[in-house]
């Protein structure tokens, strides 16, 4: 009897879990089938690897923004921080730093960027959207100023390993991305910090009155968000062995769109890293498919924008139901 009800409970949990992501999963499959018919190049090993690589840098950024959005905030500065970190990596390379040193530079840029975001929000009391729009402009400007608007090519064992390296025939980039998702996922579900992020996203007042240090948690969350951007810069650089100040420019909303498509509540407190992974998969397939079909670049942006609105609308309908 006991085991039977437990089994039933487990089944309910599984169906609930599948239910949460079912719509995204179905969308991914439908989109995959549609593109396979539309283009003979879509469902090929080479192209699927392409999608995987495309997903890597953006995917790591999406993992970071998942944390800030679960908190009930937003981080629009990530793409700029990624470009800034990329340029700093290039500078460090020219100064003779190599290997793990470059990794440290990239991560440090992220930590500093996130700390600045958190400082502006906590101390100056500016809301997350305006704060990160401001720092988005600032870090983008810094990237251009430091690089004097130029691209720097880079040849370094670490970057080459990231760009060309393979494990079991799969690119290092994908393994790194996978590792980031596992770390962020475990952090959200199995640490006190992660639980506090979700609690604050649910209700900042209730969290504060339950003795949670809202400002401290917020600071860590934004540092994680920006550190993911710093880390992503290495993957971006490794795609063409170039440090570019315009990296990710104009795609600032892509990861946020992917996260919302993955079912994360825009108001925070609800969602998971699995949703983000699925949302990112959907978004990457869409971008890749549209390019394969040689769709106009501007029309692609139009589709992405409309999709973001649709995803937010679905979120509103969903929260109204509760």
């Amino acid at each position: 009897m006991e085991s039977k009800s437990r089994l039933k409970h487990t089944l309910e949990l599984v169906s609930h879990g599948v239910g949460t992501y079912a719509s995204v999963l179905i969308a991914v499959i439908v989109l995959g089938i549609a593109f396979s018919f539309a283009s003979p190049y879509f469902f090929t090993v080479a192209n699927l690897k392409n999608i995987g690589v495309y997903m890597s840098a953006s995917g790591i950024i999406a993992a970071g923004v998942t944390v800030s959005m679960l908190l009930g905030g937003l981080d629009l500065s990530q793409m700029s921080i990624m470009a800034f970190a990329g340029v700093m990596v290039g500078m460090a390379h020219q100064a003779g730093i190599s290997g793990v040193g470059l990794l440290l530079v990239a991560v440090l840029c992220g930590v500093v960027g996130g700390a600045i975001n958190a400082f502006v929000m906590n101390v100056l009391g500016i809301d997350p959207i305006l704060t990160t729009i401001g720092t988005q402009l600032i870090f983008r400007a810094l990237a251009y100023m430091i690089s004097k608007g130029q691209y720097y090519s880079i040849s370094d064992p670490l970057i080459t390993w990231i760009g060309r390296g393979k494990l079991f025939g799969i690119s290092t980039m994908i393994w790194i991305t996978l590792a980031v998702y596992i770390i962020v996922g475990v952090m959200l579900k199995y640490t006190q910090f992660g639980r506090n992020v979700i609690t604050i996203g649910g209700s900042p007042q209730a969290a504060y009155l339950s003795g949670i240090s809202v400002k401290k948690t917020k600071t860590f969350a934004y540092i994680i968000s920006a550190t993911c951007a710093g880390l992503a810069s290495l993957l971006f650089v490794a795609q063409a062995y170039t440090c570019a100040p315009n990296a990710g420019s104009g795609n600032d909303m892509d990861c946020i769109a992917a996260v919302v498509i993955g079912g994360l509540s825009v108001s925070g407190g609800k969602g998971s890293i699995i949703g983000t992974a699925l949302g990112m998969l959907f978004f990457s397939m869409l971008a890749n498919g549209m390019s394969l079909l040689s769709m106009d670049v501007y029309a692609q942006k139009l589709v992405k924008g409309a999709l973001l609105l649709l995803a937010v609308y679905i979120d509103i309908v969903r929260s109204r139901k509760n």
Partner: protein
Amino acid sequence: MSEILMKLEGIYKRFPGVIALDNVNLTIRAGEVLALVGENGAGKSTLIKIMSGAYTPSEGALYVAGQKYEKLTPGEALRFGIAAIHQELNNVNGLSIAENIFLNNQPRTKAGMVDYKAMWEASRKAQEAVGLQYLSPKTLMHRLSTAEKQLVEIARAYVRDLKVMIMDEPTSALNQEEINKLYTIIRQLRAEGKGIIYISHKLDEVFELADRIQVLRNGSSVYEVDAKDATRDAIITSMCGRELKDMYPVSKRELGEVVLEVEGLSDDFLQDVSFHVRRGEILGLYGLMGCGNAEAIQSVFGARRYKSGEISIKGKRVDIKNPRQAAGLGIAYVPAERKTEGLILGHTVRSNLSVVTLGQLRRGIFLDLAAEARMARDWINRLRIKTPRTDTVVSTLSGGNQQKIVIAKWLANKPDVFLLNDPTRGVDVGAKVEIYKEIDELCKAGCAVVYVASELPELLGIADRVYVFHEGKINGEFSGSEVTQKNIIASAIGEESYGK
């Protein structure tokens, strides 16, 4: 007798599980001031909302301008010249006085644009009527004092052909000079044949202004008297007499040493608030809405800043800056707003129960989810929280079960001082009794409880000692046989002879 401006006949208002108004009659005539008096929850605000069209009565009729209505819409109320001035003023701060007076009612030119010239002129006249002639109509609202803003609201009603003005505790934020000015304007409006319904707890004001006095209690109109025949004692007595309907399962307890001592808590609002509570004691803090009792415990919990004063826990002076620190000192707090401050409504029973003590449910840096589930099941059993599962979303539970979760999450932290801010609001009777029982158990185990209540019978039922707040000050302390309705109500409305 003068003309009847508005009449309410047999008004009932029912909310799920509560009767807010129970067969209330009210008449307001031209050129009179009717004072409406009553304790928290007596039904005053519900009545105002029905008169100004915000609520629809469940039964009964309103007679306005000789016509019978089942209900009024806010638009109709405005058109009939019924205006309500609430405690929370309704001004647009970025606009001028004139623009506020003629909000959504601006004079127009033939072309349909706002006729500013006419508006400044008309505003000047309206300002004269309420004694604001010394200010330019173009003055921006945010430069005005509270009293002046209130007068602008009166002027706004005035230019719309005012007939009945309802004023909800209009003097609560005014100084004596401003009060006198307001009285002059009220008397002037009365002389012009307007009807004024004046809600106040202050008997001095009531006797100063009113022609008639009507007392509400438990949603019924219990006493109506001409002001010249009324006595203070009769009014206070008629405000009392709420029955002790619920069960109060509290027992005799041993009182221990003083755990919490508050000395001279002061800021812009609180004035020299001092109280203490012992282990095993239930201390009640009572007062009418906005009297400062809730603010006092919020200050103790670090959820509200105060300017000066000392707080000691177990004899040690502490400086509590935030709730986190308070929790660490063994203080627990149940906020009044269960749905926004007490709970994460969209999250599960389990994560709501563990939110305070999550730090104790770790193995290294990782959360011990199995221990968390055990802990949740434990509290669900102990407080008999009715929930299908530990991972049920709390928004689907009843108010009583939700409140039990808020209490349980703090019980898990083994508090020495438990601060409760109106914990039984919106909770059904059965769950109320269980909450009282739990509080009693808690006290027996040596915890000290400070209980802020909006319902007086509740405190009479469970408190060992009661402090009564009035306008940010403690106006009386009662214990043992002095804890009576009459003593407490008199003290809460600011009568001094009743307090200590």
